[in-house]
């Protein structure tokens, strides 16, 4: 895909070799990006799989988290504190939203859900601009996480990114335990499997749904808050991650948290190495991956 003038990136610039340490570091980058994607996608896939709601506004929750981190850490003077408060706020926000709108849409057509949440994107964007303005903001990294670990002569790895990965792993584990080990998880699975049956068993499906939705929103917001210090906080930051989230969820198989994890890592891998090895098509690679997977398994890697 060479083109006259402008950037003409060699189609396969990997022809010059990548030394082993660099390769390892790229691997690390892939995993780290993948984990962040997972945290975002997990909430989406839960809401998808259990309530069957297509939520285009999920990116807005990510943005909400980032902006919360910005204001709260300024107010409270500590990101950790901001994280806790922000998480609570966003969960509360999720509950309110579920009660006000979403619970009326579980039984509705996917189409209506797409439309509703698309409308919400508009609303959230405008509210964001009214509340926080349109400037770009930064969120300071907590001092004790500010260091970097030297890896090679001139490259070092920021501790904070490791911290992010750690949080993501922790959340992944937490989710796994919650869903497969706890009573609540049992009920959630029952609800996802067959809501009538679950109701017959005397499970308060309404409550379950509310909780799951709130968790989903919370996850997205936390992802936003965790990412804020490295991503900085700016308008429309939600819409950019949204599509990537959907790709992850769909590749993984809607509703499967495990699938989301695997596919997030996969996407991280493809995106990272794509940029280095196939720069000229890196924009399309992830979507090619998704298309390929769905042609092979029309319902994603881990169909529920």
């Amino acid at each position, binding site marked *: 895909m060479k*083109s006259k003038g402008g950037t003409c990136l060699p189609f396969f610039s990997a022809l010059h070799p990548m030394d082993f340490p660099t390769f390892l570091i790229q691997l690390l980058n892939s995993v780290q990006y993948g984990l962040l994607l997972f945290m975002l996608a997990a909430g989406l896939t839960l809401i998808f799989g259990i309530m069957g709601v297509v939520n285009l506004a999920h990116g807005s929750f990510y943005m909400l988290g980032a902006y919360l981190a910005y204001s709260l850490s300024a107010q409270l003077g500590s990101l950790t504190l901001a994280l806790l408060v922000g998480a609570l706020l966003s969960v509360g926000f999720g509950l309110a939203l579920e009660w006000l709108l979403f619970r009326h849409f579980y039984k509705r057509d996917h189409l209506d859900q797409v439309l509703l949440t698309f409308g919400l994107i508009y609303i959230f964007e405008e509210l964001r601009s*009214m509340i926080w303005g349109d400037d770009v903001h930064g969120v300071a990294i907590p001092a004790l996480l500010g260091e970097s670990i030297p890896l090679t002569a001139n490259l070092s790895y920021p501790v904070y990114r490791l911290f992010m990965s750690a949080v993501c792993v922790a959340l992944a584990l937490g989710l796994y335990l919650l869903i497969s080990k706890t009573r609540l998880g049992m009920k959630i699975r029952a609800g996802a499997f067959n809501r009538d049956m679950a109701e017959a068993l005397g499970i308060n499906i309404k409550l379950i749904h509310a909780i799951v939705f709130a968790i989903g929103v919370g996850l997205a917001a936390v992802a936003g808050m965790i990412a804020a210090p490295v991503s900085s906080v700016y308008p429309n930051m939600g819409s950019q991650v949204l599509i990537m989230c959907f790709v992850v969820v769909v590749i993984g198989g809607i509703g499967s948290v495990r699938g989301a994890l695997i596919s997030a890592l996969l996407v991280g891998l493809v995106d990272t190495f794509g940029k280095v090895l196939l720069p000229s098509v890196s924009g399309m690679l992830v*979507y090619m991956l998704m298309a390929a997977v769905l042609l092979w398994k029309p319902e994603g890697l881990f169909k529920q």
Partner: protein
Amino acid sequence: MSTPTANLEVFPRSVRLVLWLGLAALAAFPFAGSDFYVQMVTRMMILAIFAMSLDLLQGVSGLVSLGHAAYFGLAGYALAFLMPQNEAASLWLTLPLSVLASGLAALVIGFFVVRTHGIYFIMVTMAFAQMVFFLFFDNKALGGSDGLYINFKPTVNLGGWTLMDLDNKKTLYFFTLAAMLLVYGFLRRLLWSPFGRALAGIRVNEHRMRALGFGTFGYKLTAFSLAGALAGLAGYLWGVQTGYINPELMGFHMSAHAIMMVILGGMGNFAGAIVGAFGFEVVLHLFKDLPQVGSVQLGKHWQLWMGSFIVLVVIFAPRGLLGLADRLGRHKGAADE
């Protein structure tokens, strides 16, 4: 997912009346409106064609494509590449080729996507559209992120002699109007054809259709390609009118807006798509032109109004404006008796 409700396929008198009035208004408009509004309505009609093409999938066949803009944009690009830098090419050449390009793209992509169902279908169509988007966005050879100019309007000659001059805004207006009516007539026809009935059956209960012996894959693929080609017609007209095409025409928002237009008007009867396209555009312009009230510039917050409007429509008028008109028509009827 809810069980699909019956589409409003046959119009009650009230709705038919509204449509005829609308048509009359459209025919008369150029003699009233200024150039700007003539162009604006032309654009709305182009979007109406685009929306109708999507309705064939979304409303009739129950295939919600979140990537329909790809085929809209492709035809525009086809026109841009077919149009020489310093002379005008003929419509007889560029129109069929552009529409064909979109149709073929839809055929190829459709071959993969119509295998998937429900939300997966929504997502895969989106994914393929994104691929097309980035293909053009990332490659300077294809115009890159800034897009391409189309320096001339195609010529419409018969023999030695010019049929019409599309540079004339009114001419282009009526040309587009004709195209829109043609597409509408064609799709209405198709709706009642065995093909159309089969698509409706697929929307309501594909599994049963297969058990009855329908090769649904062929039906869906044909519908997908046909819709792509018609979207291409719209995209071609867009390119002719604006003379400038860019990747955003294939973007996520373009696709989402089309979905919205179809729902806003009412699905599965094509008239709804037209009403929706006009409604959506008018409302958007209205919100953006809202006046200053006190210290607040209402227009500045158009996103808020637009978003709320969409949410309200989904909640109160899931069957769209025509659906509403129909419902109220019936209420009236009941009251009269």
